[in-house]
């Protein structure tokens, strides 16, 4: 059979590399190059315009002198711990309940999971309305006869961050449920039969056999939720806009505000680098173990 002549026979063996290289180069430039750029800017006095004169740790000193940054850090801490705990508890609970041979399981699962298809902006808008102090839940519950019921967290600087937790848990807990349900279902039937013969009741079976077996799911859930928490920006913007004042600022909104509203490029860059470092501290060990597990 005569082989069809291709104009560039010699290029064939190099094609895979030729295809990957530009993409890889783009990734190097737009990820690593940009990180480097941001990192460098964080070591300069850049304000409205970038300056490229090295100025040491000055922006980091300023950052850690900014009270608003402390608010952001404290909020991140409050938000991420409650958000992660809430999602995990609800997620495991629902996964276990759904694991009990429910006929309409598919429907219920779909309902629990649909918030994941929504934008955080939509979620924020909805909850902002529900939590509206004048016309929202407060109004409803007063209407039920609890005249003095107060629920003004949304506009209360001390409590507003918890409204972000409420909306965040609403959106993401179904996802954690799905992760755990898949984990529970991956446990071999014969093990459950063995447990039944050993006389373990449902609670003991879950607590002492199944949940320990799905430990990797706890790890993934932790990583995913931590990652979501650190990056959370949209939800805060839509729900509280970072307010009242800057009471619900988080590192992500802090960075955005300093970069695009106050034009403090240097300090914004420094805060972005802080976020990156946090994510790396969580993600890299996980990625490393994942790649080793799935790699060849």
């Amino acid at each position, binding site marked *: 059979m005569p082989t069809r002549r*291709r104009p560039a026979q010699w290029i064939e063996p190099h*094609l*895979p590399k030729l*295809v*990957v290289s530009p*993409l*890889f180069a*783009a*990734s190097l430039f*737009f990820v690593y190059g*940009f*990180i480097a*750029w941001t990192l460098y*800017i964080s070591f300069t006095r850049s304000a409205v315009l970038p300056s490229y004169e090295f100025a040491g740790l000055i922006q980091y000193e300023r950052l850690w002198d900014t009270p608003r940054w402390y608010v952001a850090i404290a909020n991140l801490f409050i938000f991420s711990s409650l958000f992660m705990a809430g999602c995990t508890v609800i997620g495991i609970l629902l996964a276990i*309940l759904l*694991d009990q*041979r*429910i006929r309409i399981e598919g429907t219920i699962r779909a309902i*629990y999971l*649909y*918030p*994941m*298809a*929504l*934008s955080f902006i*939509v979620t924020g*808008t*909805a909850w*902002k309305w*529900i939590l*509206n102090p004048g016309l*929202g*839940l407060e*109004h409803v519950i007063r209407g039920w006869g609890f005249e003095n019921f107060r629920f003004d967290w949304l506009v209360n600087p001390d409590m507003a961050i918890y409204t972000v937790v409420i909306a965040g848990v*609403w959106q993401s807990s*179904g996802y954690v449920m*799905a*992760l755990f*349900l898949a984990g529970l279902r991956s446990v071999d*039937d014969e093990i*459950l*039969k063995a447990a*039944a013969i050993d006389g373990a009741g449902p609670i003991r079976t879950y607590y002492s056999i199944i949940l320990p077996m799905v430990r990797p799911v706890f790890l993934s859930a932790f990583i995913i939720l931590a*990652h*979501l928490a650190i*990056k959370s920006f*949209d939800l805060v913007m*839509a729900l509280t806009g970072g307010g009242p004042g800057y009471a619900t600022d988080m*590192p992500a909104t802090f*960075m*955005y505000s300093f970069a695009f509203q106050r034009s403090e490029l240097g300090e*914004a860059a420094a*805060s972005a*680098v802080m*976020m*990156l470092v946090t*994510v790396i501290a969580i993600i890299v060990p996980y990625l490393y173990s994942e*790649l080793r597990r*799935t*790699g060849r």
Partner: protein
Amino acid sequence: MSRAAIDGIVRPKGARNKVLRVLLFFILGLFVLYYLLPLFVMVSTSLKSLDEIRGGSLLSLPRNPNFDAWGKAWQSACVGVRCNGLRPYMWNSVAMVVPAVLISTTLGALNGYALTKWRFRGADTIFALMLFGAFIPFQVVLLPMARTLGLMGLAGSVTGLIFVHTVYGLAFTTLYFRNFFIGVSDGIVQAAKIDGAGFFRIFFHVMLPMAPPAIVVTVIWQFTQIWNDFLFGIAFTVGDSNPVTVALNNIVNTSTGVKEYNVDMAAAILAALPTLLVYIIAGKYFVRGLAAGALKG
């Protein structure tokens, strides 16, 4: 997913089990209400008049439901100073999401294929380095990207947004296709090579025809992510070129004039509609994307 094989285990009979079963459904039902409440509130509020909203209760059904608020949200609500409703921004989002999804999916498929089926030295390192891009907090690239878009003359444009989403979507699409193609037997590629097929021929005639499941998952996932994006939208576009999420946020958070909650809710539903529809139609694939996104987060 089902547990047919352990359904039949003989359990002690008794009232206690009945009670537990009732409790189980009670809790599940409670959570169904919890998850549906915001959707219900959004829809019912959007169908009410402002007077009814002010006078009535959040949870009550609309007395005479009408779509006035929807019409307003669609074509005359004010976003900042412009009062054209959400419509132009919806089109912005469509104009952004379609090319961004197509390009990032195509390139991801090609990349995943090249990295798994034509292993060359360093392929794994390249993959690991690219994968990292899926995890970075995007705040760390906002500033340089804003400048780069400016230099490229794409600042404040939908085109610029397409570019950004393509670049940062590549990590996930590559990841997903790599994981898919790794499961495809190398023997198939070897056989095609022996038949004289080259790199692209194998890709288009052998690999892609096998890949529809992966393509569907990736397209759906990318579509949802890009449609729902807010950060890039607000950072890299202005006014006319805003995607719908940014416009929605602007509608809701304008402080001027009377607060029209019904219009806000209608706008929120409109903005959510495309991804919700995808979820309803192709929920199975969406969930698979989530499972893969587990790695991405």
